[in-house]
């Protein structure tokens, strides 16, 4: 039976431009006008893994994203890489969602789209970087999850062994489909789309669902469905001494050692 594979993809600001982003202290919303966007890099590894599994076992790969209308761009990128279908969940009701509400929304859509065998996600997004959506999505779908995955070895179509990284080592996890897997960069080298791939992907139809079409309880969506809230910005507490040593270089070196001794660190 062909596999139904879903990949969750997210559009994030380009990491080289992070320092230009600011938070509006009044509204708590992110100011990112004029900053170029990219598909979250780890999501590309997730798409690549999905495509490789499809090549091995035959099946369908659907890329799904929750975001503003501009997020259509990452679905086009996913098309260019070779996914079969792209779905954008776009509605103002979804705005302000934390990871729980995001996972809930994605789960509603995936369930509505039909059977699912494997859900793939990047381990975390380069903005936010909580790494929470994957496991929470798995909970809502009622399937097992494995994170920090650097290798997937399939033993038959529905059984696999995952290698998942831990600090200074790894675990081997045996599992059966359906399951959710979040991947790290080292799992594969994702493909670059060719010109031909791009020509058929640019402007390709993306299934766009609003709140009604996605389904689910309104109270579980967006800001309303988010148990966590942004409560403002924190001023950094620095009660440092800020003593700048003066004198010749030799004098400075001597003073520095004296101070370090006075501080009790040497």
């Amino acid at each position, binding site marked *: 039976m062909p596999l139904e594979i879903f990949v969750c993809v997210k559009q994030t600001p380009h990491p080289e431009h992070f320092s230009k982003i600011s938070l509006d202290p009044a509204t708590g919303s992110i100011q990112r006008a004029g900053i170029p966007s990219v598909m979250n890099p780890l999501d590309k590894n997730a798409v690549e893994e999905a495509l490789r599994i499809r090549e091995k076992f035959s099946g369908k790969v659907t890329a799904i994203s929750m975001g503003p209308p501009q997020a259509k*761009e990452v679905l*086009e*990128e996913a098309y*260019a890489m070779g996914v079969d279908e792209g779905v954008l969940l776009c509605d103002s009701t979804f705005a302000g969602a934390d990871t729980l509400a995001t996972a809930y929304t994605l789960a509603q859509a995936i369930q509505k789209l039909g059977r699912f065998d494997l859900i793939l996600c990047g381990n975390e997004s380069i903005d936010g970087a909580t790494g929470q959506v994957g496991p929470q999505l798995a909970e809502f779908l009622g399937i097992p999850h494995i994170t920090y995955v650097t290798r997937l070895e399939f033993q038959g179509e529905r059984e696999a062994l995952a290698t998942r990284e831990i600090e200074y080592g790894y675990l081997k996890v045996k599992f059966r489909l359906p399951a959710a897997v979040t991947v790290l960069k080292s799992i594969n080298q994702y493909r*670059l*789309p*060719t*010109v*031909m791939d*791009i*020509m058929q*992907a*640019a*402007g390709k139809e993306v299934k766009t669902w609003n709140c009604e079409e996605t389904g689910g309880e309104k109270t579980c969506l967006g800001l309303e469905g988010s148990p966590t809230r942004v409560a403002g910005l924190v001023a950094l507490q620095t009660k440092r001494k800020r003593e700048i040593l003066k004198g010749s270089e030799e004098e400075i070196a001597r003073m520095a050692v004296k101070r370090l001794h006075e501080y009790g660190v040497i």
Partner: protein
Amino acid sequence: MDFSFSRAHEMVRNMVREYAEKEVGPKVESYSQEGDEFPYETLKRCAELGLIGLIIPKKYGGNEMGYLARMIAIEEISKVYASLGANLRGWGLVPYMITVAGTEEQKQKYLPAFCKGEIQGSIATTEATSGSDFGSFPVSYKKDGDDYIINCRKVMISRATVSDVFGMMVRGEKGYTCFLIEKRMPGVQTGHREKLISTLSRNSPLGDVALTNCRVPKSQVVGEEGKGLGPALSTIGFVGRTGGAGICLGVAESSFDIAVKYSKERIVYGKPLHDLQSLKFMLADMAVRVECSKLLCYQVSWLQDQGKKPVELNRETSMSKLFASESAVNNTLKAIEILGGYGTAPEFGLIQRMKTALDMIAAAGSNNVLRRNVGDAAVA
């Protein structure tokens, strides 16, 4: 006027940029070593990504994405490694000649193989007497039945020692004829690498192609006998020239980027270098040069995509290469100045870019010939 790129063009730019930065960038140093092997993997990879077929008809294995896509691809690659940009430009010349003037048999025989990167071609017009003054060429072929016997020597030919097919324009009694000369034909000899100062030549090695009593069948004539000037000039002026503009744009742009980055990180008198107004003005001038080069390059490409013919765009193609080339020279020089003591340090890559810019003054249409073209158009 809509100056925005289509989504497809943006995506192609992003793809080529990623290819250049991730796959080519790390190898630039090893590619640039003296006496290096031709990097065939770049030909294969560019073909795989569809970069060779950008202006080749779909019917023959190309993707027809167009001239603007080609300009973007050459620009992005040249920002990282101009020598590969030069090769990408070069790989498109013979296919173009065949596309506009070749027979159906020639198209079927050669174009799909070019698109797949199975073979590569080089345009060969320059002789010892001149690159631009074709009138100075001696008569070098005569007819023998249905065949042609050719005796000539072409010099300064890109990738002479590695190309499989040469699009060669040769002077005859009744005018010029373009031939497709395959390297393996008896009487064809390639060799004598010129050692030019630029890294442009290291992976795009220049050499001679000499034909000695080379018997060439009628099937290899591109277009009509005696009517070769047209195809040759279109190839050089329409596609070769704009390709050269793309290389220069990439060099001007990347030199500017290097100077900007340095000026942010380098601290002098307790502040970033660009805090000095004189320096910021230099950067401003560089920025304007890059922007103008872009506009000329993208405009001519857009016009080409609109279906304008070579003869209609002589002025625009000339302007694009002329301006981009001088921008490359100026920007690399200024960047070296801005980097102070580090200006000529190899790890910043400016010396390589400077050398490329100097090479590009004469290559792909000598700047002064292009000036003449623009001047002629101005007073016409």
